[in-house]
């Protein structure tokens, strides 16, 4: 029996965000390519989006009073965990289709799992978020799985 994961906490597994639909522009691709030091002309011109362009495309845009004092927007999909110190996590990103300017993409994020493990210095809580990004035809474009660890 887990000591930290209450039934109330585990009941959050399966929760999903509202769909977030965003428009891809050549200018936004160019800005991302420049900021990441990309050297490939097709990205610097904005002809096609480089991998990971979905990160800025779907980053939360919240009003100033919704930011914490250290400037972070709180992820409303997450419950309050009994452990708060974040450790390194991991990502898996699968690319199904390229992203071009003038595409509309829709993201849905789901809290896919919460589990606990015993660490060397105490219990650890893991949670996994799955982000599915689809085009307007409903076809998968990108799936990102993020696992974060709390201690």
């Amino acid at each position, binding site marked *: 029996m887990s000591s930290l994961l209450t039934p109330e906490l585990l009941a959050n597994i399966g929760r999903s965000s509202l769909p977030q639909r965003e428009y891809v522009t050549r200018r936004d691709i160019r800005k991302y390519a420049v*900021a990441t*030091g990309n050297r490939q002309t097709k990205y610097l011109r904005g002809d096609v989006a480089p991998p*990971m362009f979905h990160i800025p495309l779907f980053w939360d845009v919240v009003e100033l009073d919704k930011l914490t004092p250290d400037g972070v927007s709180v992820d409303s999909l997450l419950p309050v965990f009994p452990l708060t110190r974040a450790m*390194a996590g*991991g*990502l*898996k990103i699968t690319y199904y289709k390229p992203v071009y300017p003038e595409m509309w993409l829709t993201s849905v994020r789901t809290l896919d799992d919460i589990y606990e493990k015993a660490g060397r210095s105490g219990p650890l809580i893991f949670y996994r978020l799955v982000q599915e990004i689809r085009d307007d035809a409903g076809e998968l474009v990108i799936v990102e799985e993020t696992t974060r660890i709390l201690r």
Partner: protein
Amino acid sequence: MSHELAVGEQLPSREFEPDNVQLMLYNAVLWNGHRIHFDLPYATEVEGYPGLVLAGPMLGDWLHQIVDEWLGDQGTIRSIEYSNRAATYVGDVLKVSGEIIAVDHEHSTAVIEVRLENQHGDNVAPGQVTVAFNVPTGQAS
């Protein structure tokens, strides 16, 4: 990309030395207002970091970049798995490298182990990238 793919082949590596202008631009593109990335007194005196912290996803982008540059128009990245193991800072010299660890000639795919080392030799962002080629892997040029 090389002629004939083989396990053990090294990809061209690249060093990144991001300054605070690049870090600001990256976080501006994301709309990321986390102070540890631009507010040096906050990062050092409140959070206790030795400097401005590089945004974790930027390191992930660089892991993609060396593979994507190497592929050119001969293939695409199918997937990546990586983790951010330690914080990195403005002023760090970060070397990204890759090595082919598996080749599937039948399906024209390969797996590349990627790493991002800081100037101390610590691999702070290990990962694996799976790529698919649009040319036979034995004849890629």
